[in-house]
């Protein structure tokens, strides 16, 4: 079975966790998560609902304590150095009611600003304008998408070193989502920031990601640089003879299989030349080895069975 990469090489890490385990009663939410987010990266953590993404983020914010393992943010332990860690994080949580529902939006932003000494007033005004925030409205009466925009303004306006965004586009309409992602790209280019985004809507953040992690059932099954993913994960289109017996050499390496008549479409992780050679040795004629979009890659990785 192919071993998918779960370690990143070299470079200082903004976020590093080792062997994180978290259980809620009989449920294991995190099962040995070793997240590595390089400084300056835009790291997209992909996974279905319940994969453990939000719990991992909460561990970084010390909103949840892991039963086992360690976590570091810029070399600091969130458990013991929580205030210093949180001062460097712009956090958008999964919850939409995070904040005081009885406060007006303007007052909530003002309240938030008092806690972050790096709050950039001019930038905050720009964000308010960009997101079209209605400052006089009660925060609790906002729609899901409007609330999300307030959360994003709160996270970005103090220009933190690390943005931890848990499903940041959830509730946004397509136009606002597009504009928000554009703004996020602008923010990253203007401010030295590391971004850690979780999503189960991968295509939303395709254009942002330079690192990808894939979580399923509380485990990080892969983490890799975007270009490495592009290079290593390919969909092979090949013609096979009648009664083809398959490619025993590739057993365990195929993440996804599809076929149409004599043509097979297999998604395989590995060096392209080596995989093509193995397919050829098995009698297949490789027509094409195309890289996958991030969304397709995520689907392939997440639909992979443990014992194919």
């Amino acid at each position: 079975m192919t071993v998918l990469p779960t370690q990143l090489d070299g470079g200082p890490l903004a976020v590093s966790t080792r062997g994180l385990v978290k259980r809620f009663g009989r449920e294991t939410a995190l099962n040995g998560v070793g997240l590595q987010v390089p400084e300056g990266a835009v790291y997209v953590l992909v996974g279905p609902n319940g994969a453990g993404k939000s719990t991992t983020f909460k561990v970084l914010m010390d909103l949840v304590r892991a039963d086992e393992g360690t976590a570091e943010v810029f070399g600091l332990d969130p458990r013991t150095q929580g205030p210093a860690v949180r001062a460097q994080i712009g956090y958008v949580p999964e919850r939409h009611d995070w904040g005081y529902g009885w406060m007006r939006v303007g007052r909530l932003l003002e309240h938030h600003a008092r806690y972050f000494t790096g709050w950039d007033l001019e930038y905050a005004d720009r964000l308010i304008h960009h997101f079209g925030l209605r400052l006089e409205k009660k925060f609790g009466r906002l729609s899901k998408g409007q609330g999300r925009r307030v959360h994003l303004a709160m996270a970005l306006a103090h220009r933190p070193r690390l943005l931890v965004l848990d499903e940041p586009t959830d509730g946004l309409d397509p136009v606002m989502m597009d504009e928000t992602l554009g703004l996020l790209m602008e923010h990253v280019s203007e401010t030295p920031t590391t971004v850690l985004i979780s999503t189960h809507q991968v295509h939303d953040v395709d254009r942002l990601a330079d690192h990808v992690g894939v979580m399923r059932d509380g485990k990080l099954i892969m983490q890799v640089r975007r270009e490495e993913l592009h290079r290593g994960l390919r969909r092979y289109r090949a013609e096979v003879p009648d009664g083809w017996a398959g490619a025993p050499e590739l057993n365990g390496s195929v993440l996804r299989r599809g076929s149409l008549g004599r043509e097979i479409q297999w998604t395989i992780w590995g060096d392209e030349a080596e995989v093509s050679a193995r397919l050829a040795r098995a009698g297949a004629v490789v027509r094409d080895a195309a890289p996958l979009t991030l969304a397709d890659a995520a689907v392939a990785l997440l639909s992979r069975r443990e014992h194919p």
Partner: protein
Amino acid sequence: MSTAAITMDAPASPRAPAWGAIAAEQVRAVGLGLRVELTLLALFLAGLTVLLNVTAYRTGERINTDIPNVAIPLFMLALAAPLAIWKGEEPARRGYLWAMPVPRVEHSLAKVFAGWVWVMGIVVVMLLWVLAMAWATGGDLRLDRSLGMLDGMPRGARVVAPAMEGYPWMWLVPFTGATVAYLAGSILALASNYPWRWIAGGVFAFMMTAMLMEMGGLMIEELVEDVFRAAATVMLGTSDTVVSYVDARGAPLRAIQSAPDAARWAVSSLVALALALAGVLAAARRGEER
């Protein structure tokens, strides 16, 4: 901010906000959060003002500024206040407060402090209101005049000892009593996701205890009475005291009556405050960085 002004240098770790600034912000935020409750209280007082003044005008009845009239409602109000102050921020939902870049124990205590400032403000307003009511109806304006209103004194009797008036410390009782009640309520709000259940449980426990007392459990009765006496001293500044008085014909009499007792009030209040503060500190340690 112009894009050109932004550099790509790694930013330094941001400064932590000062505790004073956070406490001041919490005072403002808690005030905003209590707007509905404070408005309702103001409306209730306005209605009560009209009702009492109309009644006083019709019947000639006077309103005096005696301690039980003031202290007991304030005690109850202060006990319930933390539930309004921490609404929507039960421990399981304290994500926003805990996500701020300040130590969590200090942050929780800053919020408790902010609430206390508002509760003390309410005590001041209520005392001024009671004084205004007494003044408007021609009642007694001295909060420290308590012995003249002892229950069960025979007609025509007058107190010989202790002195009938001159207890200026009694003005502190509503403040200390409300503080103790507020801190006790804060323990529930800080520690429990279901503070109302604890209050309901407390009432249930009280009723069960009363039932057991009826059934003749002497030890429980004594214990409960001691607790009640201590609570009454904290809340009202009074304790059971031997009162000497003379009846209408001048014959000396003695009785045990509830009367102002500075020493017992001071000790009971200090003990209650210390216990309540310790409880608040212990409850605030939930979520502490360690």
